[in-house]
């Protein structure tokens, strides 16, 4: 699965890491729901680190799209909300 970390580039993450990403994603969601910036930072850094360490960074001239796009490491809850924006925070 190809994952983009915004501001960093694209990574090829093996399928067996996806469960871990989903678990970290739930933590991220909880932190956003609770509006807990500290928990958000921990969850986001954990999620991104898992992508970096579990995946291989793709070369800069790779042209394909990504399956997942993750916020950049210096994002705040506020900025993530701004992207989610009109969709609101209620899971579809």
């Amino acid at each position: 699965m190809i994952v983009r970390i915004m501001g960093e580039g694209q990574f090829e993450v093996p399928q067996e890491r996806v469960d871990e990403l989903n678990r970290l994603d739930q933590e991220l969601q909880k932190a956003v729901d609770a509006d807990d910036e500290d928990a958000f930072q921990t969850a986001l850094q954990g999620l991104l680190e898992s992508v970096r360490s579990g995946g291989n960074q793709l070369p800069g001239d790779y042209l394909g799209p990504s399956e997942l796009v993750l916020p950049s490491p210096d994002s705040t809850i506020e900025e993530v909300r701004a992207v989610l924006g009109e969709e609101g925070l209620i899971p579809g």
Partner: protein
Amino acid sequence: MGLMKRFSMIFKAKASKTLDRYEDPRETLDYSYERQLELLQKMRRGVADVATSRKRVELQAQSLQQSAAKLENQARQAVSQNRDDLAREALTRRAAIAGQLGDLQVQHDQLKTEEAKLVDASQRLQAKVEAFRTRKETIKATYTAAEAQTRINEAVSGIGEEMGDVGLAMQRAEDKVAQMQSRAGALDELMASGALDNLSQTSDRLEAELNRTSADSMVEAELSRIRGELGGPTTAKQLGPRAETAQGAPTQDERPAEETPSAPAQEEQR
């Protein structure tokens, strides 16, 4: 649906909204390429803007550092002249400047980080744009419009994602620069008119007072030297060394004791 899935979907939807589709998909390639080149240009300007803003902060910090150093010197001078009151004033002013310098340092670090990010982002975009150009030519040469569709979609949405990412990075950097510029403007005003002007006035006043104090002690020293030469009371002799060194230079300057050149000059006047 998890947060990252929603985030991805919305981001990708936004990125693809900016891509125009043409009837002949091969035109989409050309148009997308033009947009990529425009974005690269814009990024280069963005990097330059951040650098300009960073340099402005550096200049401000330099001038504050000079003020701080001057005040530090004045404090030392004041202490050596037993003027703790002046020293205290200089140090208080210096502390205020140190606070400003701390703020500037934070701003400077932030701008440096933004600058580095933009440089990275523009390098990544550059690599993708070059790959895209090659891919575009290959697709146009190899496939008919109908066959090209999927390949074009992939390349275009891949680069669209990059452009969206870069676009957000640019926006962030622009916001930061705007923020810094208004702060830098405020500090410039402060330096030009308000509180910091008071600081330099303070510093000038301190200087004047220190100069006066040191002039006083020099006068005392000269006085005791002259007294010494006239064989008067030498009570102030301990101030002597300073006066002696001041005196030293002229006495070694031995001129040949010839006639002054004024005589020939008079002859010339008929």
